[in-house]
């Protein structure tokens, strides 16, 4: 992997620190009136998501991290691992619960997800921005209420729970924004 000088630092660059992969969030060049120049860098740990600050002497280097985002198709969960496949090469990759994390509740078979790989191993999984799913459980709505005000919880086929308008019924198909966890619309079959 390449090494990067502080002169190449910019937000988004992936570097290795203390054996972990990090993404640069912010890079600030500071220099006293006379004297040593530094780069104050905010970095996000790609394994934990935690943001920390690191300082480099300007001109020093950091090793690049082999981190790439790939589009993979979700196949199935075997009870312990989530299995994904590269739609081009058919190569399969498995991810554990820590890696899949909150994305798990939005994963429906065949969904195309963005998986971040570090040295070929998944670091994180992002579900599609919008998913279309069936409601498996929700209280019967009040007849005639089409205002959409209020709302009620509805459990989806993957187990995710979202708030839906009162008029939406059990068994209906809905569209959900996974970034906010909010109901978007009903979907006609």
């Amino acid at each position: 992997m390449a090494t990067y000088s502080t002169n190449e630092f910019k937000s988004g660059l992936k570097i290795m620190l203390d054996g972990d992969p990090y993404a640069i969030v912010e890079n600030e060049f500071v220099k006293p009136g006379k004297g040593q120049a530094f780069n104050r860098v905010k970095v996000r740990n790609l394994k934990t998501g935690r943001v920390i600050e690191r300082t480099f002497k300007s001109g020093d280097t950091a090793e690049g991290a082999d981190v790439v985002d790939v589009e993979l198709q979700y196949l199935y969960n075997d009870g312990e691992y989530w299995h994904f496949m590269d739609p081009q090469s058919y190569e399969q990759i498995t991810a554990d619960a820590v890696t899949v994390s909150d994305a798990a509740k939005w994963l429906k078979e065949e969904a195309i997800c963005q998986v971040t790989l570090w040295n070929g191993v998944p670091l994180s999984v992002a579900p599609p921005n919008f998913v279309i799913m069936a409601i498996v459980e929700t209280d019967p709505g009040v007849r005639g209420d089409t205002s959409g005000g209020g709302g009620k919880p509805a459990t989806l086929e993957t187990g995710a729970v979202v708030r839906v308008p009162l008029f939406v019924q059990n068994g209906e198909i809905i569209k959900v924004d996974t970034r906010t966890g909010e109901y978007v619309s009903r979907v006609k079959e």
Partner: protein
Amino acid sequence: MTAYHWRPSADLSVLRLRAELLAQIRAFFAARGVLEVETPALSAAAITDPHLASFNTCYSGPGSQHGRPLYLHTSPEFAMKRLLAAGSGCIYQIARVFRDGEAGSRHNPEFTLLEWYRVGFDHHRLMDEVAELVGMLLAGRLTLAEPERLSYRQIFQHHLNLDPHRATVADLAACAETRNVSIPTGMPLDDPDPWLDLLLTHCVEPRLGSGRLTFVHDYPASQAALARLRPDDPPVGERFELYINGIELANGFHELGDTVEQRHRFAQENAARRAAGLPVMPVDEHLLAALEFGLPDCAGVALGFDRLVMLATRKTSLAEVLAFPLDRA
């Protein structure tokens, strides 16, 4: 490169204010009988300070068939001191200066420096004049309390509870650790200055000059290569810096007139360059000859004009006050 990059990054109203402030500066010095001068941006010699990098270029033409190396000045200081030695009296210059390796929200590799020298002033009297000029330029644009003066020792005692003149590298490293300052790799174990710089930039500077002009003076001798030393205990360099709202705006000296001492400091800095693997710079023999002839007792200061405009307009980056910063140059 994006399509809109042909446009200036600063509003035209800011560029108009730049012109207005420059006119005010010229009127300020004209009223005081300080002479405006111009000195070359290209010089055969260069600054030896290991923390400043000069751009270099080459002249070829009449008188130089095979090319002669020239450096773009990082400040007009050396040439202005030659004028002072030649009897110019008090002088100022508004110069475009060049520093390689410096770019960020408060740095651009070329910028405008207002530099002036006052014969017969010491650094304290010059601080009075800096306060007067900056106060006038910012009046009505930034509300400021009365200026204050603190020594380098006081700011470290106040903000970090340590004496910068006596602290060892171990003390400074421990202080950085307790303040959660990330310590870069490769910090030297035998030189406190980079540690002082680390603490200064991370813990002290952001809190200096909050809503007022804060002058910091009396720097460690090792951080004042062009200043007179005062034989206190320990000896301090008669250098000052001006901060407003955490932004370093000006750097001044009670100027060193001792040729032997100056030659010695140049040699020390070039030795430090060699040790750090940096190019050794040709020493300015014209300056040394001028000092030998005799520099009148004077104090001088360099003020970052672009940063002043940034403060006057309450902007947070130089790009907002420069027509075309580095990425649009």
